[in-house]
């Protein structure tokens, strides 16, 4: 039984790390923005917002910037495209994040013709500060390599908003075009702002950073599938542990009858059985978690590694959930102890 718990914990641990790793590759550029909300162009007919369809104009971010309680409203352009080294020998798919040079959103200094590569982008292109890279036909100089931001499984290249507007559009409607430059979303830093009124005035829909992840096309489907697998694994583990303790309780029926005949109270026997379940689950989960952490460290280390996050949320939380669900499964099973008749110990009592 301990082996089963170890294996399930290992599987859950690996899946948790992988899920978080994939999520990070999908979203870290968004979750890492120095902002608490994103304002998207309000889609028509109440449709859900998406990064792909959103396009906001200068009028919108200026409107937000002037709202009370808004401390910063920075336009961010997002577009996925191919990048190449200056000599064209190496290419990589990247996400270009266009920001204003003085906006404070990029991890380094961007300027017209000067980009900041995230480390994965620099690794993919084999580029270093001072090198030339080509983004959508425009040649730019690498000013710095900083951060490890990633969006929709592609590494991020930070550009100036002006450059971003030249290398590609926002991908959506350009209704704000008469108002000036374009971007995909507006990164807002707020403190007690009236968001509904702001949306009304700017023609946007504002979401928190976490809420806005659902606007990344692939994120919901991918994350939903992995989370569903994780949920099933947790359910299976509870069922397996429950089944084990059902058999265990039946096998111990004679011993339980003797203990009851000797004067053991039913609560004592339940506590005793549950205590043994907890010890076994804790030991099995501990070993499984250690194995998952070790394998995760191996998978996640080095260049071109599997996306794997090794932290408390992917190591300790699954372990705790395993123990809690296992104890619930065991508790449901060992309640049979209450039905054991101590007369069995006397054998020929009837």
């Amino acid at each position, binding site marked *: 039984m301990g082996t089963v718990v170890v294996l399930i914990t290992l599987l859950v641990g690996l899946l948790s790390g992988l899920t978080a790793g994939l999520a990070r590759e999908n979203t870290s550029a968004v979750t890492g923005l120095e902002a608490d909300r994103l304002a998207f162009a309000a889609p028509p007919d109440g449709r859900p917002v998406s990064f792909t369809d959103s396009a906001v104009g200068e009028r919108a971010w200026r409107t937000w910037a002037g709202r009370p309680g808004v401390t910063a409203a920075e336009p961010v352009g997002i577009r996925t495209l191919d990048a190449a080294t200056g000599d064209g020998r190496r290419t990589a798919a990247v996400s270009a994040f266009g920001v204003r040079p003085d906006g404070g959103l990029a991890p380094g200094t961007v300027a017209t013709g000067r980009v900041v590569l995230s480390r994965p982008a620099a690794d993919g292109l084999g580029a270093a500060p001072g090198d030339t890279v080509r983004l959508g036909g425009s040649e730019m100089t690498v000013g710095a390599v900083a951060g490890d931001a990633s969006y929709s499984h592609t590494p991020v290249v930070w550009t100036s908003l002006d450059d971003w507007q030249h290398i590609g559009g926002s991908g959506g409607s350009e209704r704000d075009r008469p108002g000036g430059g374009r971007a995909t979303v507006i990164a807002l830093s707020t403190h007690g702002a009236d968001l509904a009124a702001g949306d009304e005035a700017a023609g946007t829909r504002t979401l928190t950073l976490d809420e806005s992840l659902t606007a990344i096309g692939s994120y919901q489907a991918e994350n939903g599938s992995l989370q569903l697998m994780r949920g099933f694994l947790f359910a299976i583990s509870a069922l397996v542990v429950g089944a084990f303790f059902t058999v265990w309780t039946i096998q111990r029926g004679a011993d339980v009858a003797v203990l009851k005949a*000797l*004067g053991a109270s039913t609560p004592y026997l339940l506590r005793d059985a549950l205590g043994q379940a907890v010890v076994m689950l804790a030991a099995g989960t501990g070993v499984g978690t250690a194995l998952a952490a070790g394998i995760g460290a191996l998978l996640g280390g080095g260049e071109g590694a599997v996306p794997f996050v090794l932290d408390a949320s992917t190591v300790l939380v699954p372990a705790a959930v395993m123990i809690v669900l296992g104890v619930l499964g065991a508790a449901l099973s060992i309640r049979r102890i209450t039905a054991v008749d*101590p007369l069995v110990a*006397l*054998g020929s*009592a009837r």
Partner: protein
Amino acid sequence: MTLTLTDVTLTYPDGGTRLTALDRVSLHVAAGTLTAVVGPSGSGKSSLLAVAATLVTPDRGRVVVAGTDTAGLGGAEKAALRRERVGIVFQQPNLLPSLTAVEQVLVMAHLSGGPARAARARARELLDAVGLADKADRRPHELSGGQRQRVNIARALMNEPAVLLVDEPTSALDHERGAAVLDLLAALTRERSTATVLVTHDRAHLDRVDGTVTMRDGRLTAHAPA
């Protein structure tokens, strides 16, 4: 402290009717005496033991165990009474397979929640009293049938019971070992002043007991003081 059953009747469901296992049985066992209940199989001996052990509630009658009238006691109170005042020696030793001899005896102290160090000393003293001082760390499969039965007796005595209920202790033993077990029970009964009831169908060793009662068809048919 004594064991007293007064006019006890016990019936079991048997198809559409009820089978009478005990029929107006009265029995008094004084402290420091060993009373044998003999009779053929199915006569009601084990039912008598089950009632005395508070494992079964009779339909009628009064059962007083070590001064406690068991009528109206709840399950938890009966369990506590068995734990603190009653010792049971099972027909099969019913030892827990994974525990050593001394741990088998310590189970009783563990159930009562007494101090561990004093309990361990007492468990070893009891194993010494039943002649198993050198077998304290052996598990059941490393003990003979007679030795297992002695562990069973030591376990029953661990919480200093006022009433000792013994169910066919010699059924799996040869004559010599059976006699030794009966000698031990008789000695412990007097030494520890327990009111001991010995249920047996084996009349071979009844010269060791203080009194004998005979059961037939759920009734006590004879009461013969030794």
